[in-house]
């Protein structure tokens, strides 16, 4: 087995005096995708946030490519879209590029919006898009050049997407896997077909 991208061992986390998981191990190698499954409230989101460094109250070891996790080396799409409803899709994506300090042309924004099937919607304030369209804007980040990081953490990415949207997004995920990235994602829906996909259950007793 090649060196894992994400390496978690002995992770333990509790919330409100309830233990969510303990002794949790997970190793994801390059070009591997893991679907995290478990009932509502099992701790899937909490686990992703621990990995992303946004939930520091855990015990155990989390390493990304052998080093402590740094926000710039992963891409996190959470329950909250990370998209401002007052700005247009293009402005939102442009800002995501800027955040990574990315010097480059605006054309990649248009390209990303096209990849998620939003051609022509780039200058509408996101507030005025439908739920699925908003979700697509959030996921268009996966098609930006700044998404070429070792690890993607996607928390229920398929919410509100129709079948076409689901295909587009799983296509983006497959591309990333082909590029050697690792993906950890959650969904309650049937997972799409992806190469190197495995399933991991968490806290089966909610």
């Amino acid at each position: 087995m090649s060196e894992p991208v994400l390496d978690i061992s002995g992770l333990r986390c509790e919330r409100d005096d309830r233990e969510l998981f303990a002794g949790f191990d997970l190793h994801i190698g390059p070009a591997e995708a893991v679907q995290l499954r478990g009932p509502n409230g099992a701790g899937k989101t909490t686990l992703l946030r621990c990995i992303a460094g946004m939930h520091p109250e855990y015990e155990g070891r989390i390493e990304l490519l052998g080093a402590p996790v740094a926000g710039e080396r992963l891409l996190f799409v959470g329950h909250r879209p990370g998209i401002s409803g007052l700005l247009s899709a293009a402005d939102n994506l442009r800002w995501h590029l800027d955040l990574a300090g990315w010097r480059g042309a605006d054309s990649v924004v248009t390209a990303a919006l096209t990849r998620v099937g939003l051609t022509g919607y780039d200058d509408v304030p996101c507030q005025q898009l439908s739920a699925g369209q908003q979700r697509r804007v959030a996921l268009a980040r996966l098609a930006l050049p700044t998404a070429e990081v070792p690890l993607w953490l996607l928390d229920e990415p398929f919410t509100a997407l129709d079948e076409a949207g689901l295909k587009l997004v799983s296509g983006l995920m497959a591309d990333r896997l082909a590029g050697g990235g690792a993906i950890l994602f959650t969904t309650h829906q049937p997972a799409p077909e992806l190469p190197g996909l495995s399933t991991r259950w968490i806290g089966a007793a909610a």
Partner: protein
Amino acid sequence: MTAPLASEPSLWVLFRGQLRRDLKLAFGQPSELANPLAFFVVVITLFPLGVSPEPGVLSGMAPGVLWIAALLATLLGLEALFRRDRDDGTLEQMVLRAQPLYLPVVARMLAHWMVTGLPLTLLAPLLGGMLNLAPEARLPLMLGLALGTPVLVLLGGVGAALTVGLRTGGVLLALLVLPLFVPVLILGVSAAELASSGLDPAGPLLWLAAGASFAITAVPFAIAAALRIGVETG
């Protein structure tokens, strides 16, 4: 000039991107640039109405009134400063990805200042005129505002960042922040009053300048640390 991704991320792009975004959010249309200006005129009008319309009384109060208007304007937008970003998840992304977080924080504070402190500073001679401020006090007042309002915005930013995830927003925030504003208020007012009594206002202005340069370098770190905490809770 598409740079390859592997190239060093640009700090300037990070800063400029955040500033551009925040200004877009503050001023959707150029016509909205007038709003902060009009706001100050309205606020200043309240004092002759509420306190006393006599020119003598007003001219004594003028620096205090302008400074209190500055505090008020800073306070008003404070609650929304990070709240909306937290609710829609963009704050999360900023904390995760911005490297260093310091830069977008500075940009955000700069944008807030451009809606509050800057218009007030520019309007100060006009408003001072409306309040019968002594002419020789105008420049010191403007300088004081130019140096002091950034400090207000930064200190306010600390409060806003600390309360970003909380239920009790407005009042607690004001309570946290107002006591910290006191030295700025005092120094700013006294510069103008010294000048209007014919004395040299350099002392308080120098203090303000020192405070401003310290605040600009140090306070964004406190804001960034507070934002990290605010994001964690979510």
